[in-house]
């Protein structure tokens, strides 16, 4: 029985969560009025530094903890509804599994929790192990798995019910570059098959490559949400990197006002300009000094720039 997937797959409304820590039960706010919206079929990156409240949000969505106030809906139903989880797959952060089970037993166990019919389950286990590239480890105990293998079989576990929404908590953390690429490819394949993917991460490069939209969470508050290109485009100060040769000391002094940074290496000089507007002025100086331009690279603003600015801004506000 396939239900129509609503346009808004996941939504939270002013979610707030506080914890009591330490002996005296000091109150710490983990989330402060979080509103997010994830649309059908998109890859949504939930970004933020460590301790921003990403895992707290995911746990609220999975009904593992309860918010102090605010609500969250998945596929149009409130997250407290156990039935919602039939169509959701979840991979917790650095998951530990029952390590005495083999990959097949492990997936069968989770399949049983969904009441997947035995015959369908066997077939699906074969497909999923193939999809995550773990067919060779079908009869191997999880204790013998590497971290990357565990992560892949963990994703298979999240897909055992063929969910509409896949929620992954830090799926790339702790993996080597090869492992990260494999997980990225896997997420893209899931997107191609029409699933909605919501994942938390602090690895911005991965998010930039993968996400249709992202949100940035800092200290429990949402500081940005939107398309990567829009967010980066709005915020970028597009710097330009220039390598020139044969620039004299006098010339160097003249270009300095237009640059952010100057690095001399023998005959060559690396100039980082503040923006496009300075290019002509610098080129004039270089020509006048009879130097030559070796290369010029415009730098588009990256998610990292935006992230650093938002995180830095918040920290600055706190300090003020």
């Amino acid at each position, binding site marked *: 029985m396939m239900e129509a997937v609503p346009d808004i797959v996941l939504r939270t409304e002013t979610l707030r969560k506080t914890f009591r820590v330490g002996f005296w039960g000091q109150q710490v706010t983990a989330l402060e009025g979080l509103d997010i919206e994830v649309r059908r079929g998109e890859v949504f990156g939930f970004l933020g530094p460590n301790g921003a409240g990403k895992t707290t949000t995911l746990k609220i969505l999975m*009904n593992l903890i309860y918010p102090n106030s605010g609500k969250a809906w998945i596929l149009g139903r409130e997250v407290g509804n156990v039935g919602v989880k039939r169509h959701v797959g979840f991979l*917790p952060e650095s998951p530990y*599994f029952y390590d005495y089970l083999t990959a097949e037993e492990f997936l069968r166990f989770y399949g049983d*929790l969904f009441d997947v019919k035995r015959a369908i389950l066997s077939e699906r286990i074969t497909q999923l192990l193939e999809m995550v590239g773990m067919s060779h480890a079908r009869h191997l105990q999880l204790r013998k798995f590497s971290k990357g293998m565990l992560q892949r079989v963990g994703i298979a576990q999240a897909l055992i*019910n063929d969910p509409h929404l896949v929620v992954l908590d830090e799926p790339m953390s702790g993996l080597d570059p090869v492992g990260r690429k494999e997980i990225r490819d896997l997420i893209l394949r899931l997107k191609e098959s029409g699933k909605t993917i919501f994942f938390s991460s602090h690895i911005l490069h991965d998010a930039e490559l993968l996400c249709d939209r992202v949100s940035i969470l800092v200290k429990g508050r949402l500081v940005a949400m939107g398309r990567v290109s829009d967010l980066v485009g709005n915020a970028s100060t597009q710097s330009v990197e220039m390598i020139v040769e044969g620039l004299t000391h006098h010339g160097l002094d003249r270009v300095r006002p237009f640059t952010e940074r100057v690095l001399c290496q023998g005959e060559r000089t690396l100039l980082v300009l503040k923006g496009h507007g300075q290019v002509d002025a610098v080129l004039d100086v270089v020509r006048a000094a009879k130097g030559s331009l070796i290369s010029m690279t415009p730098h588009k603003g990256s998610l990292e720039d935006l992230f650093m600015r938002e995180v830095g801004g918040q920290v600055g506000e706190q300090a003020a």
Partner: protein
Amino acid sequence: MRRVISIAMNTFRETLREKILYNLLFFALLMIGSSLLFARITYGEFERLILDIGLGSINLFGVIIAMFVGIGLVNKEIDKKTIYTILSKPVPRYEFLLGKYLGLCLTLLVNTGIMVVGLLLVLQTMQVSIDSLLFKSLLLIYIELIVVTAVALLFSTFTSATLSAIFTLAVFIIGHLSADLKVMGQKLGATGETLLNMIYYLMPNLERFNLKGHVIHRLDVGFADMMLIVAYGVAYTAVLLLLASIIFQRRDFQ
């Protein structure tokens, strides 16, 4: 139901990997076996000795296994975060708890079964007659074990493993001395009596499950009495599981 059974079977497999289980089982069988030796150096009455040591060992080691394995069950799931993957599936929290509990009850059944086989072998060797009263006593020992396991489970839903071990042990001891509480209450003033009576009715009366005296003195227990005691154990367990579910449902898994 399939979810509960899956969790129960997984729990059963998990407990079978506990090394402490085999150590305890080994000592239990050693104790039961040692009664053979004691019987040989005892003049007359060796039947009583074998039954006393045998039933006592099954009871004691059963309780120790129930406590040591039982208290870790839920806490381990939370510490290792395996609970996140289970509760993010369409599994209500009470089903998870029930699955864990039934899994441990199955482990206890198998363990008790092995100890009973040990006892029967000893009785057979010493040519002691085996009657239905012995099995009634064994059934009640098992009922006591499931009550103690439910106590351990209840505590483990809101405290650490160490604290739940201490609390469970306390309940076990009080549960066996609860008749004394009532007697003591009668010797105190009105307030003391009310207080001790409250504890008496609140704590499980574990002495009700103890038929060792009956077995040794061959005093049979009627069917109606047996049913009543079993019903008491099952009802007490049900209340404990309900309380555990309510606490577990409200808790945050941080």
